[in-house]
């Protein structure tokens, strides 16, 4: 079963980091990604640009409206995701717990709907 692991972190904390701190985090993520590729959990994953680059689009009565910023203003922001293949929720939780961002932010684990 596929699970989407959404990585929520406080962007402002990331912005205030030194170059070395940033590189250390990147190294953690590379190592983690390598690890779940080897274990067969990895399906896909991306990091996102910060929320000021976000736009939110709605169509109401046929009219498109676009607003600046993310869908919801929250204390922690969606910063990236992994799509993983896991045996069950316990397996997915174990993978999610190893995502570097879990130590400072929160990981939302969502099972992926299968149609048909």
């Amino acid at each position, binding site marked *: *079963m596929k699970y989407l692991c959404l990585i929520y972190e406080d962007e402002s904390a990331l912005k205030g980091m030194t170059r070395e701190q940033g590189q250390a985090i990147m190294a953690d993520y590379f190592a983690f990604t390598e690890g779940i590729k080897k274990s067969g959990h990895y399906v896909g994953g991306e990091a996102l640009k910060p929320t000021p680059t976000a736009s939110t689009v709605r169509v109401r009565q046929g009219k498109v409206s676009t607003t600046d910023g993310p869908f919801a203003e929250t204390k922690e922001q969606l910063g990236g995701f992994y799509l993983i293949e896991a*045996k*069950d*929720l*316990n*397996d997915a939780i174990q993978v999610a717990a190893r995502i570097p961002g879990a130590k400072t932010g929160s990981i939302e684990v969502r*099972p992926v709907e299968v149609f048909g």
Partner: protein
Amino acid sequence: MTDAAGEEANERVREQIGAIYRSDSRRVLATLIRLLGDFDRAEEATHDAFTAALDTWPVDGVPENPRAWLVSTGRFKAIDRLRRGARFDAALASLAEQLEGSVAPTIAVEDEGVDDDRLRLIFTCCHPALSADARIALTLREVCGLATEQIARAFLTSAPTLAQRVVRAKGKIREARIPYQVPSLTELPDRLDAVLHVIYLVFNEGYSASGGESLTRPDLSAEAIRLGRLLTELLPEPEAIGLLALMLLHDARRAARTSRDGEIVLLDAQDRTLWNREQIDEGLELIERALSLRRFGPYTLQAAIAAVHAEAHESSATDWRQIAGLYDVLMRVDPSPVVELNRAAAVAMRDGPEAGLTLIDAIFARGELAEYHFAYSARADLCRRLGRTTEAVAAYERAAALTNQAPERRFIERRLAELRAAPS
């Protein structure tokens, strides 16, 4: 055989089936959930199996291994239902085939692994991915076999609300694929905490109801103790043993905690001859066992505190020095404002009300326990003992406003009446 004799024999078999239902229906359900991979299907199958027993046992006699018979009958009935449903839904046909092929019938009738199934059921019902409310409802429903109406009544909510909660929890188990398994060793500490917490919450609601007309709900305490026994039998971890000891020691005081007309009697005024000595002895033995396993935690420490109370044959003989010391340890292991409040009450008994009051006011000063009626009752009691009547009245009034439980409110009102009558 005459008709009357036959009817009597039938009645005996029916009684036997009733007894097997009470002792084994949860075991049968736990195994069927594993075999069928679905809570609802397993519940239906359990029901079908017992119905079939009522039909056939009076004629064919009670099988040698009734539980194995019930499991395999339930499984066949479930496959049968899927087949009938398959006429409308092709997916059910392949599921029926899969279920039929996946398990050799002999596996289903073996007794081995039945305890594992019950543990699987407990851990699944108490999975941390379910909401706390849902965990309690699901555990009481599936592990204890309580009816939805019973659970709703115990938690002062409506049956439809509770049923909805159970449906949602089962939906999440299915959709998010929460596995039916006992957690691995690395997950165990975290997952065991979740199970113990559910049992503790059920017990607490029974020990001191959060609302309603009576102080206790003995049915819930009894259910929690039964769960605790089951868990320690299946998984004798020190904290599981500690929690069982804690529940037994608290519950041992039940008869002394209310007067004949349902009014609260505080610990220092209780008739200690009413305490259940047998339960106390069992609790003390369990604490010894938990402590000898070394990896004990907050539940064992709380049980040890309850044990000090239990060992005092009269209130004035209570070893407050030891109790305050145990609260110091508890504050290091599992700090919380409520533990701090209880520690303050113990310090007040050891060093005088003034010392306790300073500690309680420090908690309030941090903005904690502002909605907790026991904190105001504790402050009021210490002020009362110090002769600070105005402050005591104010704190009791706040406590009365915050409690939802009738005996508690009446107790506070009695204290208020005494204070207002006293010359100031």
